[in-house]
């Protein structure tokens, strides 16, 4: 028997490319991505980490401001030494006996712990971490609302730009800002989670011990409750629906839980008393950042421009506008106009809403705008992400300190307005009796100056007795009788800056009672010829 066996047709295989003359060719397609699935990352995440890395690095290298920070560290040192909180002002001799509720004791302790273990680099790193955390939380929430990385990044950039001046000053307010951003994130989430019932009270326990702005957080929750109630009322027209609405109940309970959680602090309910009192301290009215926002200045103009942008966006946005948005923007805007310092709370809200409605408007009015498709999750992006994070950390002052024990020099780590040399002089020549110092330098003098130095005022202006504060202003403003004030307080040493006090310096130079003890381009120290 005969038959024909047909040979199967040859299977076509992808032939390997012709090897390049003289070299090996790597076929990347043969590489297997062995990164576990849960660790795989996307291009989007890498971009976020890059942005946050830049934020971290920028704020890590930014010099430490010459004001509040040092006073807070001094209080932190006192608390760590005494292992107790002072009940009356402990550091300013002219404010002895003034009751003190230290609303930022935990921040001060953390700050002190950081500077003693990691030095100046640690402080820079700590503030950078806080700001990066704020940026990350805002980035996440905006991304969630807009589904657009570019607009989410816009929100972060807007937030940093609007708050640039406030973020420059390292102080417990940063801790409050972190807490607020977390609260903002949770209260603007479309789907509340079970863990929010634990997170929010825990957040407020921490917040109430980190910074006095916790009261703003409680108000925020109440505002969100009111916003939800208004929306419901507008939609249903029924008051009864308010009492049964889950969201209203949830927000109200969160507000109450937050208020109760804030009682867990060393002062208990007295903390609320202090929060109520704070706004009424007359001394704060003399401080620029507590005054009406100067709309002619750079920050005022930026604030106004952003407000106008928001108004325009709200005009054209196709998104439904929730009442909480209007309440928060109007309330915070008014607060910022009356007291410039509120800009720090207004900025993240404005940035979030700016990005949200800008994205919606662009999507509505320019639908042809190309969008970058999301990249697949791959191990490659995980590596790039990790690498970027490492680079930003390793090259930062904090990274250098942790890994190589390299401490930045004070001249690089501190702002150029810090009176390093003048205070060193005073440390070598301890002043006798009362010192008169500018408000801006009181904290640094207390921290870096001679032990037990009798500063006139420091940044805790609300603690300075009213008469003392008025007398301080009388001297720096060279009002009638200013020279007598120095005699009346028995001032034997004066520390002033050339930049803002040149007129006062000239008068002291002409006064036979005073001689110059130290003088450089930045600061001058006067000594009384016949000490009191």
């Amino acid at each position, binding site marked *: 028997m005969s038959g024909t066996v047909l040979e199967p047709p040859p299977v076509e295989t992808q032939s390997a490319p012709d090897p390049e003359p003289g070299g090996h060719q790597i076929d990347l397609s043969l590489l297997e991505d062995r990164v576990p699935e849960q660790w795989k990352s996307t291009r989007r995440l890498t971009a976020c980490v890059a942005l946050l890395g830049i934020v971290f690095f920028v704020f890590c290298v930014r010099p430490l401001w010459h004001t509040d920070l040092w006073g807070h560290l001094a209080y932190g040192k006192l608390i760590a030494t005494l292992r107790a909180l002072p009940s009356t002002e402990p550091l300013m001799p002219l404010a002895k*006996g003034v009751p003190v509720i230290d609303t930022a004791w935990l921040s001060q302790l953390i700050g002190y712990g950081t500077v003693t273990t990691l030095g100046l680099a640690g402080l820079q790193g700590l503030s950078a971490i806080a700001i990066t955390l704020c940026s990350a939380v805002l980035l996440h929430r905006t991304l969630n609302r807009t589904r657009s990385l570019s607009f989410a990044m816009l929100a972060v950039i807007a937030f940093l730009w609007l708050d640039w001046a406030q973020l420059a000053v390292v102080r417990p307010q940063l801790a409050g800002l972190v807490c607020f951003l977390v609260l903002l994130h949770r209260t603007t989430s479309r789907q509340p989670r079970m863990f929010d019932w634990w997170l929010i009270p825990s957040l407020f326990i921490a917040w109430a011990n980190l910074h006095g702005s916790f009261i703003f957080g409680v108000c925020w929750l109440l505002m969100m409750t009111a916003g939800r109630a208004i929306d419901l009322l507008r939609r249903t027209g029924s008051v009864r629906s308010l009492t049964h609405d889950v969201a209203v109940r949830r927000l109200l309970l969160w507000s109450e839980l937050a208020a*109760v959680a804030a009682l867990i602090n060393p002062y208990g309910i007295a903390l609320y008393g202090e929060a109520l009192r704070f706004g009424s301290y007359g001394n704060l009215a003399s401080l620029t950042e507590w005054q009406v926002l100067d709309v002619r200045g750079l920050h005022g103009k930026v604030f106004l421009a952003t407000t106008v942008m928001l108004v325009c966006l709200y005009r054209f946005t196709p998104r439904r506008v929730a009442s909480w948005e209007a309440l928060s923007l109007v309330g915070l805007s008014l607060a910022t106009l009356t007291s410039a310092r509120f800009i720090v709370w207004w900025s993240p809200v404005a940035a979030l809403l700016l990005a949200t409605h800008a994205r919606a408007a662009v999507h509505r009015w320019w639908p042809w705008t190309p969008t970058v498709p999301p990249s697949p999750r791959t191990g490659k992006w995980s590596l790039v992400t990790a690498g970027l994070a490492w680079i930003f950390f390793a090259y930062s002052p904090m990274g250098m300190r942790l890994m190589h024990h390299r401490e930045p020099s004070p001249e690089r780590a501190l702002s150029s307005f810090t009176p390093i040399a003048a205070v060193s002089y005073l440390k070598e020549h301890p002043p006798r009796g009362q010192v008169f110092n500018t408000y801006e330098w009181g904290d640094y003098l207390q921290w870096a100056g001679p032990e037990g130095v009798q500063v006139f005022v420091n940044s805790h202006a609300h603690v300075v007795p009213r008469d003392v504060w008025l007398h301080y202003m009388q001297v720096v403003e060279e009002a009638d009788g200013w020279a007598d004030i120095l005699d009346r307080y028995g001032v034997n040493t004066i520390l002033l800056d050339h930049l803002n006090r040149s007129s006062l310096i000239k008068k002291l130079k002409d006064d036979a009672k005073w001689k110059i003890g130290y003088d450089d381009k930045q600061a001058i120290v006067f000594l009384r010829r016949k000490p009191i």
Partner: protein
Amino acid sequence: MSHRTIPTAAVWGAQFAVLAAFAASYALAKPVDRQILVSELTGRSAAEVVTIPRETALTIEPLYDDSEVISDDELALVLAQVVPRFPQKQLKPNYVEHALRTWWMKARFSDPTVMSGEQMKDYLVDHGRYLASWGDDIDPLLQERSNGVAVRWGKDLCASVHHDHWLACLTEAGMSLNEPVFTPNRRHHTANDVLQEAIRDFRLDEVETEWSSLAFALWMAPQKTWRNRSGRELSFDLMVDRLVRGDKKLGVCAGTHRVYSLMALIRLDDEYHILTDEGRKTAWSYLETVRDAITVSQFPDGHWPSNWPDGADAVKKPVEEELFKKVIATGHHLEWLAIAPRELHPPREHILKAARWVIRTTIQQTPSDIGQRYTFFSHVGNAMALWRKTHPADFWMKWEADHPGWVDQPADATAVLNR
């Protein structure tokens, strides 16, 4: 709790829990914190009422009966110059306060034109009498506040010139805490209401603290601390720090009232321990420097100048000044030295010289001169009586009783001075 449903019972339960938490927190709070919280919510003062442990204030007795400093005759002549013979119209409260402080409430005079201690006290505590002197075209001396009585003070002739001087003078004069005080609305107030208001009102860094510190110490001892309206915790130690603060020449009457108040605090501390060791040391050190300054700043004729803090420079480069300023410095220094221990005295010769000068100067003044500078000479009268371990009223009333007709025909001053 599920985010899909929140039972009504849970909501109500949460309300009770929240109320309970706040109530418990309030109950556990320190009294001072509760007070501050209530004051923030209601606008009321945060100061607590200070319990005064006595009906009449403490007195600081003089230490020396030294006839070499001043004789009986000389004392009579000096006191004769400072009897409170004032015109009844537009009667200056500052004059009455000084006179009352010198003569005390128990003072009685045979001369009907001279105000008795009771009459002077009545003038200061009764708005009606003040009104009768000044008319109703001016602000009242005694001003009602929400829960106390304040005394108007300032540069006006119709006001009490110095802060808490009214209180300090009446305190030293022996006023009772329950002494009725009649304000324009004639409501039932007492001296305690004035004292409590002064305590609330007091600010450590105000310009004048000399009389406040003296009055508070005389009433409050042995209590060491208290709070003012703003909740600041004050103490006599802080008072000392405040009194020693600043150039010595500053303060009322060439800085001498600060010295008297410090000495009074030390004397009260001897018995009632109102100062800590550090506070006492601060006050004592200051007085030592005052002693050293007056030791070298006395002029050959015995007077101290108003720039006595300049020490020897005050004599080397004397300043031109009117007589009354020399009387202020000399009279006030002699006053505090009379209640000071010997360790704080300049050499005895200095005291004798100062006394000689001030006695001679006082006796030589015309009634018109005294009338223009009564307040300063009143201190001289008080100081000289203290150096005989007595008080002007006690001495004068005995003197009048023992020397009937002396007032109408006093001894020849020149003869007395030259004896």
